[in-house]
């Protein structure tokens, strides 16, 4: 970093909150994706004013600024692809306020998801999107990627819970969006513009989240299917049951086999296993809902249908789903976790298509995911040191994205575009939409300092 910029940054955040040491630069080069690039320095602001001054400086000097939370994003959103200043927001981590009467929580972006969850628990409330990285990811990151999670089917995603934001724009101006009122249609919905914008339009420095009372009881059940298409149909037909399960997860054959090879869970090796959860305030209610779900499973030729009789049994059922990522991570040297999402009615087709792609490119693809909102996670396993496999993996991903789009779906349900999926934006978005996105970007960030190089915004 040029010395005068370094001195200015130190003047803004303090010496102890500026770093350009080798070990920090290496850490800041990465997130949880396969991308890497060194930044020039990192700063840890504590207030929106400091963020504002940093951006003013960067905007003047045309230096990229990359906001960062816990760095657990899967698509390269936090990787400083063009160098610059990493804006590490993890130390801006106060829970500013929890108001049960107003049904909201106000947090700084660095608050870890699980920290908020724990703070809400004594009140009997929760912030429903339940990302798998909850113990580590930050709410700022959740907002930047519109994070989802296992509860998406019934409770939606982060976007559905952001009432308002404080945002610092590229030129340093600070603004507020939204309202503390539970609903508002006053002016453009700027909140929704920023949610999911992956740090390319502004830096979020405060988040007003809507929170829900947390149902106290759950019922857990599962169904196994010899035929993938039956499983897919079961998923699609859940909507006809009249109820929304709070969780509806799927585990594909490859996944089940991998889990069995690496644990002693002894799961049935079938085409698909569906794990369901219903929630409510009385056991009658949750059981009633679960019975409906299991009925749908049966109607679609489930081989085995089971409801957990105890908490321990429920935990066992969940263990399988929770171990999928870890087990698959150990099989090959590399993997890519995709998150293509399609309308519920096309889930069966998507599953079949994934199997075909796996065969076509001769790569192991294990699928699991949030069947309940059509969001699958095909995990493509490959040897990253074999250039041929790397090529085949890239081709498989491309086919996967095309398939999703063909099925009226989207490239990404919750992980974001970042770097990984940027080349495929035009598969999903027509030229006019791309043009509008780029115009918005130019309007709000004319010098392209905010997380440049992401989301195919550079035409």
């Amino acid at each position, binding site marked *: 970093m040029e010395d005068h910029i370094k001195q200015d940054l130190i003047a803004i955040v303090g010496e102890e909150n500026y770093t350009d040491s080798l*070990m*920090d630069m290496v*850490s800041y080069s990465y997130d*949880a994706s396969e991308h890497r690039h060194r930044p020039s320095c990192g700063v840890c602001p504590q207030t929106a004013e400091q963020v504002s001054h940093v951006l003013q400086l960067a905007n003047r000097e045309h230096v990229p600024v990359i906001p960062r939370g816990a760095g657990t994003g899967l698509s390269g959103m936090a990787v400083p692809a063009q160098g610059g200043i990493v804006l590490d927001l993890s130390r801006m981590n106060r829970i500013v306020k929890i108001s049960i009467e107003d049904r909201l929580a106000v947090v700084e972006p660095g608050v870890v998801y699980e920290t908020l969850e724990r703070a809400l628990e004594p009140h009997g409330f929760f912030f429903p999107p339940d990302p798998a*990285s909850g113990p*580590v990811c930050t709410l700022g990151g959740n907002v930047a990627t519109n994070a989802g999670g296992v509860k998406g089917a019934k409770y939606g995603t982060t976007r559905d819970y952001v009432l308002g934001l404080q945002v610092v724009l590229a030129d340093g101006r600070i603004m507020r969006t939204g309202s503390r009122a539970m609903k508002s249609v006053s002016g453009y919905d700027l909140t929704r513009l920023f949610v999911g914008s992956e740090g390319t339009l502004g830096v979020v420095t405060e988040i007003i989240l809507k929170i829900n009372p947390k149902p106290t009881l759950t019922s857990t059940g599962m169904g196994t299917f010899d035929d993938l298409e039956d499983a897919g149909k079961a998923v699609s037909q859940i909507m006809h049951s009249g109820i929304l399960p709070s969780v509806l997860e799927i585990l594909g054959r490859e996944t089940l086999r991998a889990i069995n090879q690496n644990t002693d869970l002894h799961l049935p090796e079938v085409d698909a296993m569906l794990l369901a959860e219903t929630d409510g305030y009385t056991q009658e209610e949750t059981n009633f809902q679960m019975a409906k779900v299991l009925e749908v499973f049966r109607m679609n030729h489930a081989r085995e249908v089971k409801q957990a009789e105890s908490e321990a049994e429920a935990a066992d059922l969940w263990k399988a789903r929770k171990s999928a990522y870890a087990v698959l*991570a150990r099989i090959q040297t590399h993997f890519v976790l995709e998150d293509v999402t399609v309308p519920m009615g096309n889930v069966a087709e998507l599953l079949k298509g994934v199997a075909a792609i796996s065969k076509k490119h001769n790569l192991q693809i294990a699928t699991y995911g949030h069947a309940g909102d059509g969001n699958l996670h095909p995990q493509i396993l490959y040897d990253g040191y074999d250039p041929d496999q790397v090529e085949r993996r890239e081709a498989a991903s491309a086919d996967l994205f095309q398939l999703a789009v063909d099925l009226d779906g989207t490239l990404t349900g919750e992980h974001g575009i970042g770097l990984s999926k940027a080349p495929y934006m035009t598969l999903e978005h027509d030229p006019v939409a791309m043009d509008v996105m780029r115009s918005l970007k130019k309007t709000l960030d004319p010098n392209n300092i905010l997380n440049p190089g992401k989301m195919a915004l550079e035409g």
Partner: protein
Amino acid sequence: MKSKYEFEAKYREQILQCSKCGFCQAVCPVYGSTLRPAYNARGKMLLLKEVMDGHIELNDELIETLFQCTTCASCFENCPSGVNVPEIIKEVRKDMVNIGSCHPAFTGMNEVLQKHTNIYAEDEPEDFERERNKKAEYVFFIGCVGSYREDEPALAVLDLLDRLEVDYTLIDEVCCSGVLEDVGFQINENLSRQNIERILATGARGVITSCPYCFRTFSNKPQYAELGEKGVRIMHVTQFLKDFDFGVKTDKRVTYHDPCDLGRHCGIYEEPRQIIRGIAPDFVEMRHHHAEALCCGAGGGVRGAYPKNSIAMARRRLQEVEEVGAEVVLTECNSCVHNLSNAKLRKQKFRIYNTTQFINELMEDAE
């Protein structure tokens, strides 16, 4: 292609297995108290990957992170990919020492142990008013922290053993020097020889210690294999005492802190709890316990090299004591007692003891 460094030769596959998911950030005590990604397990693996790629060399700039790890193994415990970060760190520290890049506290420690009997270079251990080097059934080995930093818990366990009429002797002990293996050096064989000779000279059939670290060193390190070969059993004091009936009770709310070296590293979780449940009906677990216990921050040499961060980690652990409203927190590791005691704030009214120390106090009060 021959690996330039030993850590790569031994652990290349594992380091590559790190998928950069970052889940270790949830449990790493150094990251938790500093929020600096470079200190986290992932941050360390990323550095080593770049070293293996040839992008960077091992050098002094990396000392601050490679030597700042308590080796608590919480990361390993939680890693979806099964990367054994502490073992990798211990190996890379040896590579660092080989190239002359080491934290001065550890080069210092290695030098101190060439000339002194203990890591603190102290000349006079606490007296403990007991004979040393007698013939006895057991040797009680105190360890450096108990002898020179936390003499009260050390004295208490000896008083307790006396009350229970255990036939033991102290020896003219020297540092087990196990810590050197973890900070880039080797066990000091001059010292280990002395310990073995003096233990064998007592004719003891077992060595009991309150220090989980000495326990691990005697049990696992080849330099101490002769003890096992000669039929001398190594026991942690909680293993030794688990079936005793102490005949005392407390009505205070008590919780237990699993020392990393006893819990995650040795799998000894239940013996201490068995003892505590016998004396404390109101026993509660902290939020993180057993294999999930939060490290007190002292291990892996961190208390010597990075004392401020070490105490900050201990402070985090003590918040969990407050959370469960415990009046007493028990553990069985002098190093944990030391660091937690240093970190305790005056407004925190709970007390910190080794279990043996607490039992001794209860027995004393009962008299």
